[in-house]
């Protein structure tokens, strides 16, 4: 394995992503956890660029490190957030969960550690956005329209769920 620029970029981005994830697990204040996760999301966008998916990378920056993080911060601010996230769950339960996840990770790692398909020359990096647009509007037009229906249903559903019903009853 040679130390090319791509390898160094992958190592740096993977390191940032993993540090963000570990900070998510170890910090105590809730707001700090969400801010630590922004690093992970931006690093994952960089990984997408390495995998010649520029459009998915920009969508990742817009949706995840923009919209979803802000929505989560809203959720934290609107609820009670000043108490430290002190776990009341027992140490034994945490240890059992950790061991289970370790076993799962080992089982999956056996499957992937020598995954080696011979790499073909791809044209994914040329006019990436145009290729995605063509695929979306020809081959995947029905899932695309279903996604718009799903987003509309989520919009209406979340407004109805979060609506203050007591105040509504007072007005009538």
């Amino acid at each position, binding site marked *: *394995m*040679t130390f*090319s620029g791509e390898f160094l970029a992958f190592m740096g981005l*993977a390191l940032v*992503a*993993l540090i963000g*994830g*570990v900070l*998510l697990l170890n910090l105590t204040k*809730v707001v700090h*956890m*969400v801010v630590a*996760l922004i690093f992970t999301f931006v690093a*994952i966008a960089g*990984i997408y660029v*390495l*995998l*010649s*998916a520029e459009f*998915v990378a920009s969508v*990742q920056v817009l949706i*995840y490190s923009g919209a*979803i993080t802000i*929505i989560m911060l809203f*959720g934290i601010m*609107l*609820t*009670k*957030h000043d108490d430290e*996230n*002190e*776990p009341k*769950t027992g140490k034994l*339960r*945490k240890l059992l*969960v950790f061991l289970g*996840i370790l076993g799962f*990770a080992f089982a*999956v790692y056996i499957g*992937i*550690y020598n*995954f080696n*398909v011979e*790499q*073909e020359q*791809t044209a*994914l990096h040329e006019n990436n956005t145009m290729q*995605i647009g063509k*695929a979306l509007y020809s081959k995947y037009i029905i899932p695309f329209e279903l*996604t718009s229906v*799903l*987003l509309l*249903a*989520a*919009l209406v559903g*979340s*407004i109805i*769920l*979060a609506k*203050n019903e007591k105040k509504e009853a007072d007005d009538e």
Partner: protein
Amino acid sequence: MSSVPASAFLALALILFCIGLYGALTKRNTVIVLISIELMLNAVNINLVTFSKYGIAPSITGQVFALFAISVAAAEAAVGLAILISLYRTRKTVNIDEMDTMKN
């Protein structure tokens, strides 16, 4: 052709998925549990994009599917937070171990 093997990307996605799973199972605050689920979805997206480049039949389909997964994840986050806020209004708590109305 490429100096980074495909299994390196898959291993990174596996580690991120495990971090998200551990956070979703052990954290107390419901917002953190939701955002851990987002991290798991992100790890799956890395897998989709990796196989769209280094799979047996590389094509754009993996990236299109990653976009669909991102939009579904955004809708899920919005609905999850709406449920959380209406729950907070009635129960005055966001801790996941105190939401046990159905237990007794």
